[in-house]
């Protein structure tokens, strides 16, 4: 019997109950992907869209992201919501280093992806947060709509379920 697409494994019905056949790695990844705690981190207007995604209308807790943490030590995913300037880069690096493994990174919006509108003729902006920390999922937009961020979060969940890190 198939227990649904989301759970990795199958149940074999037997007398007096059933036997679940699965792989431990896959169960761990399944559990991880459905309980990703984001770090409270926003450096510009993308953060407003991120807050909107967390709010009642888009409500990312439907997918397991509800517990936004104010400390990197308790967070699983950092959403880089905004421009990273040269002065902020070491802070971002430190926050990432303080997060416990396994940890994931979403680069939200044009600034975090490539520097975006600040790519040319700027003295202070990092041209892509991936110069500082490794990024799992990139989101296009300036700023991206909440739907786009939700899509990125679900893409990250799928990546984790596939065993990616």
């Amino acid at each position, binding site marked *: 019997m198939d227990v649904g697409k989301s759970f990795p494994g199958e149940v074999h019905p037997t007398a007096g109950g059933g036997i679940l056949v699965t792989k431990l790695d896959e169960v761990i990844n399944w559990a991880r992907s459905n309980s990703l705690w984001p770090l409270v981190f926003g450096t510009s207007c993308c953060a407003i869209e991120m807050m909107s995604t967390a709010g009642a209308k888009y409500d990312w807790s439907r997918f397991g992201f509800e517990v936004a943490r104010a400390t990197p030590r308790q967070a699983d995913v950092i959403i880089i919501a905004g421009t990273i300037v040269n002065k902020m880069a070491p802070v971002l690096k430190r926050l990432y280093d303080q997060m416990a493994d396994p940890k994931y990174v979403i680069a939200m919006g044009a600034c975090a992806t490539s520097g975006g509108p600040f790519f040319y003729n700027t*003295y202070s902006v990092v041209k892509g947060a991936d110069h500082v920390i490794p990024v799992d999922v990139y989101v296009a937009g300036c700023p991206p709509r909440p739907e786009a961020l939700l899509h990125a979060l679900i893409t990250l969940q799928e990546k984790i379920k596939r065993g990616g890190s």
Partner: protein
Amino acid sequence: MNKEELKLRLGEMVPSAAFEEGGEWTTVVIDPVAWGGLARELRSDEGLDFDYLFCVTAVDWKTHFMMVYHLTSTVHRHMLVVKAKLDHSSPVIRTVADIWRTAEFHEREAYDLMGVEFTDHPDLRRLFMTDEWVGWPLRKDYDDPVNMIKL
């Protein structure tokens, strides 16, 4: 005071002042040397009572710098814009941090990004840029070959 009254009053205070027309607020252009005395008078005069400096701006016109001070009075509800033209090679003007405390940070910002020197400022150092930064990033002739990709 309305715009015309302010204009008359300022004409008495600084005879050399020039007025700019067409703006929303009374705009006076003064010699930077006169700024310290005028600022103190604007703040302390009972009829003027400009107790709130809400904006300090430095503009790079390539040939010169223009300092722009936006003042208002929370008592009389009138506005005044004071401009002072500074030399491009060595922009120096007296600080007003002792008259309006808010100017301390505003002037640090103008110093940090435009390189305007404020004499007698209590704490004139970098605000946004790192302490070891060289150059004035918001100047028109600023160039940074290391960090900047030119378009």
